[in-house]
């Protein structure tokens, strides 16, 4: 492009800076979202890869009662197993200085001398255990920060029935706990209320009554593809059967690994879908804008051709308009993308305990972003350029043929047409005479409405899920987990603790459920009759009544097992004697929680071969807060392995998710608004420029600017009204799609659509549209209509 034509292009662009800015904003968001998400994905994925590799995340974990040391060697000899390591993992209660409440935690054994073992830890501060002193501990880095602990601090740790005073020698993080969710404690990491401790192997073995033995075997394999690894796990389970295997997990099924993976998949999907939406709208809007610019330059095109410019030279010139927008959009999009990448990296640093998540620069992502921007921009200029090419020079020199003046569709319905005012007719004519532009307008507002509806409903769904889990179902103040199922006496004992108002025992048993060839592992919950502190409800908010005998299955579980009411299924509990028993299915309930089953606590106890057993105790307290005496009593009971506060967990989720959700909603609504605003402004400006003379004529006839703007806004509100209307339905469709995408076997993401949210979305859209209309009004008022009448097209 010669400098001459570059100057022409820039000056042409300047005459349309309003539309251009709106358009560039959309392109910028599209390109920025792509670059931002794609780069964050790579930052996070790279950091994860390195961490898992360098610190040797195990491919599987087998939980056992007690496995002798040689069983580890035995496991390592099995086919496909590359390496195996025995570990001791023990629930503990931690007391830190200046804090009343004991904190639940997990102790994990590490070799006394540092060596590169599986599930190695990354020392953040301090050092490894010294040789001679056994009373040393390395603590989780986030936990240390939350409690201001550092090497040199001392903590008290209750291991089984004995409290140990330990010296903190280091802080560390582990690839196993990138996203550390307390067991039974909701969806978010909570370093204040849950910690991981690393203790020398021999010390932990001795204090856990596991001298020379382990209760966990972790290992790596040669082939970790799901079917092969699952088969290997079966083989291991069979081989170790005698040592009381309670569970075996592939790495990908571990909460932390899974959560990180899900997040990454989400980022990857976002990096594809969002930019596509934005750039598609941008391309459509641009077709309208460039189409108009080129149409307005009809005579210029004719003149250039008359001066001897070839069709391809003219084509290139107008393609450069697209190229220009593509390049500028690419630059601003890149800047925006970098900013987004940094914001996201910052956010992920808070969520994920990875040793380093840094925002890197990726040339290929940048290049792709640029190419996408330019590609979409060129597609956006196609319509205009095709018009420029098609003009014969002689034809271009003549004024454009008068607009098609034929009747528009609604005009044919005479009964309807007659009742319309003159201005309403003008609106309808304008809408129907420019089907492409009208279509773009409707599409853009449809998309933005759908995005807003989806965003708002999504937050309601999350809220409802939280309230389902933490308010409607659970009513206790505190949950105490017990090491093993205990008899009925324990309830009487706990009932008498200071400050306790009500107690309710539960028996939670993980079982392998099967029906013929169909098998699934699920949690069976034993509830007391007249349960008050934990009341499972179905999707219609009805309380689920647990029958005296037999099992209730959730619909999802029943489907997976291919059973219906009245069938008998096989259960193999993973605790106690682990004997296979049979039970009838007496009912199927609809629930958000996918893989669950309910039974009467006595009935479930009997299936385990006990008269009455419980391993969880729910409490309410009079004071709704911790009674120091109560806590002291609890820590004196070695059977207690976990303490969870319901409201605390809820607050933590609110705190962690609330803030980032708020930002997410704001940004999404803003983006959607940008699409609506940009497209409305653009089409109104184009329409205004086409009809300047019409505006002039109306002014001569005595119309006020407000009346004339009314015609334009009438057009806009008609089109956008349609877009909003259909957008609401499209948004509801998206909500359903999202629910399907988020739902897993474990729980179903609810579809929550409040009518008020739909109204709210429509209202927001009207706000964005009005804002654009206000700008149009100002332009109509400022338009030099006398000139408009004189000017020749």
């Amino acid at each position, binding site marked *: 492009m010669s400098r001459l034509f570059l100057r022409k292009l820039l000056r042409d662009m300047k005459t349309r800076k309003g539309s251009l800015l709106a358009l560039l904003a959309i392109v910028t968001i599209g390109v920025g979202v792509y670059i931002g998400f794609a780069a964050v994905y790579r930052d996070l994925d790279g950091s994860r890869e390195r961490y898992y590799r360098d610190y040797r995340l195990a491919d599987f974990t087998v939980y056992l009662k007690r496995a002798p040391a040689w069983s580890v060697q035995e496991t390592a000899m099995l086919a496909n197993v590359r390496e195996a390591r025995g570990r001791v993992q023990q629930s503990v209660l931690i007391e830190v200085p200046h804090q009343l409440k004991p904190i639940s935690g997990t102790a994990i054994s590490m070799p006394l001398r540092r060596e590169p073992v599986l599930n190695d830890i990354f020392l953040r501060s301090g050092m490894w255990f010294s040789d001679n002193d056994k009373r040393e501990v390395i603590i989780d880095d986030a936990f240390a920060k939350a409690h201001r602990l550092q090497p040199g601090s001392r903590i008290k740790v209750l291991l089984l029935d004995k409290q140990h005073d330990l010296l903190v020698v280091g802080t560390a993080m582990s690839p196993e706990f990138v996203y550390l969710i307390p067991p039974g404690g909701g969806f978010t990491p909570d370093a204040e209320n849950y910690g991981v401790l690393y203790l020398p192997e021999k010390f932990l073995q001795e204090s856990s009554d596991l001298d020379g033995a382990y209760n966990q075997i972790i290992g790596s394999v040669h082939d970790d593809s799901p079917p092969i690894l699952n088969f290997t796990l079966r083989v291991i389970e069979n081989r170790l059967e005698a040592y009381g295997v309670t569970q075996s997990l592939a790495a990908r099924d571990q909460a932390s690994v899974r959560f990180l993976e899900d997040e990454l998949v989400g980022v990857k999907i976002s990096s594809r879908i969002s930019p596509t939406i934005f750039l598609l709208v941008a391309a459509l809007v641009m077709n309208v804008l460039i189409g108009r610019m080129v149409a307005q330059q009809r005579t210029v095109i004719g003149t250039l051709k008359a001066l001897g*410019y070839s069709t391809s030279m003219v084509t290139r010139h107008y393609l450069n308009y697209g190229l220009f927008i593509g390049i500028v959009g690419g630059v601003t999009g890149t800047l925006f993308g970098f900013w987004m990448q940094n914001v996201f990296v910052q956010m992920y640093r808070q969520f994920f305990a990875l040793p380093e998540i840094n925002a890197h620069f990726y040339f290929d992502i940048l290049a792709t972003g640029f190419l996408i921007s330019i590609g979409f921009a060129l597609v956006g200029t196609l319509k205009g350029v095709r018009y420029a090419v098609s003009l014969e020079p002689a034809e271009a020199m003549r004024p454009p043929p008068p607009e098609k003046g034929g009747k528009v569709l609604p005009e044919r319905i005479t009964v309807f047409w007659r009742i319309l005012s003159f201005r309403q007719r003008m609106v309808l004519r304008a809408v129907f005479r420019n089907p492409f532009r009208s279509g773009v307008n409707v599409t853009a507002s449809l998309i933005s409405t759908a995005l807003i509806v989806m965003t708002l409903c999504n937050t309601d769904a999350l809220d409802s899920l939280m309230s389902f889990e933490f308010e409607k179902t659970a009513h206790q103040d505190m949950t105490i987990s017990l090491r093993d199922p205990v008899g009925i006496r324990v309830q009487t004992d706990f009932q008498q603790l200071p400050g306790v108002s009500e107690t309710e025992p539960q028996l939670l048993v993980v079982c392998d459920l099967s029906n013929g060839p169909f098998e699934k592992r699920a949690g069976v919950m034993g509830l007391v009759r007249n349960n008050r502190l934990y009341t499972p409800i179905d999707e219609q908010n009805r309380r689920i009544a647990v029958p005296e005998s037999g099992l209730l299955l959730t619909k999802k579980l029943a489907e997976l097992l291919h059973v219906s009411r009245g069938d008998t299924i096989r259960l193999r509990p993973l605790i106690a004697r682990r004997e296979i028993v049979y039970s009838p299915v007496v009912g199927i309930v609809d629930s958000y929680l996918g893989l669950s089953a309910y039974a009467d606590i006595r009935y479930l106890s009997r299936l385990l071969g006990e008269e009455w057993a419980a391993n969880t105790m729910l409490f309410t307290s009079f004071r709704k807060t911790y009674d120091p005496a109560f806590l002291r009593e609890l820590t004196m009971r070695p059977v207690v392995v976990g303490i969870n506060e319901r409201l605390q967990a809820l607050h933590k989720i609110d705190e962690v998710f609330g803030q980032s959700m708020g930002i997410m909603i704001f940004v999404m609504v803003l983006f959607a608004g940008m699409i609506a605003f940009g497209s409305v402004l653009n089409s109104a400006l184009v329409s205004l420029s086409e009809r300047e003379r019409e505006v002039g004529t109306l002014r001569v006839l005595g119309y006020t600017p407000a009346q004339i703007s009314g015609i334009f806004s009438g057009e806009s509100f008609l089109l956008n009204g349609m877009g909003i209307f259909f957008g609401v339905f499209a948004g509801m469709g998206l909500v359903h799609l999202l629910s399907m995408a988020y739902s897993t076997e474990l729980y179903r993401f609810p579809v929550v659509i409040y009518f008020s949210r739909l109204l709210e979305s429509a209202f927001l859209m009207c706000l964005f549209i009005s804002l654009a209309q206000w700008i149009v009004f100002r332009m109509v008022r400022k338009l030099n209509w006398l000139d408009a009448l004189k000017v020749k097209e």
Partner: protein
Amino acid sequence: MVLQRVLLSIRSVSKVYRMGEVDVHALRNASLDIYDGEFLIIIGPSGSGKSTLLNQIGGMDRPTSGTISFMDRELSKSSDYELTLYRRREVGFIFQFYNLIPTLTALENVQVATEIVENPMTAMEALQRVGLAGRADHFPSQLSGGEQQRISVARALASNPRLLLCDEPTGALDVETSRQVLGMLSKLNRELQKTVVLITHNNAIAGLGDRVARIRDGTIHHIRTNDPPKSVEEIHW
């Protein structure tokens, strides 16, 4: 003045436009020779086909039948690209409404033409020839109609074409300005030996040309030689 060499010859040219369901015969069997270095005025009422004829001469359009030859090149059989090159090298257009590009300055508008030819005069030189070097940096909207038309003349001139085609160049101008523009065209014809073809519906101008061709209903009706042609000062309307 001895006129011998035929620069462009038009033989039995017809042009039929299809407008909706009717055929419009814009040119019917028109024949005309244009001599090298002459000042030819084609005169006719509106709708007589004079603009269509000028488009054929300028290679902007191709006839439905008949032949048009420029020297030994047959324009009526040339490809689009050949016509483009013909317009670029041999023809300079001057339009009734100037057709300047509004977002370019006077100088830049002339550069649009010089940019694509091999031996142009400089844009500044072309502006000097029309007496507007001082307004090089003005945009069309900052210039009067006459000035705009003179820029358009400079643009036509700058690529050093043999043929200047003027489509009602004074149609939008007042008398005094018209005189200036016409004077300039006849000076270019005399001093630079440019062949000028000017179409108009204004009889008063007819006296200026070496020859006057009258067109009516798409045919050349009558060709007259002015001996001698009048000067700009001599014509009145």
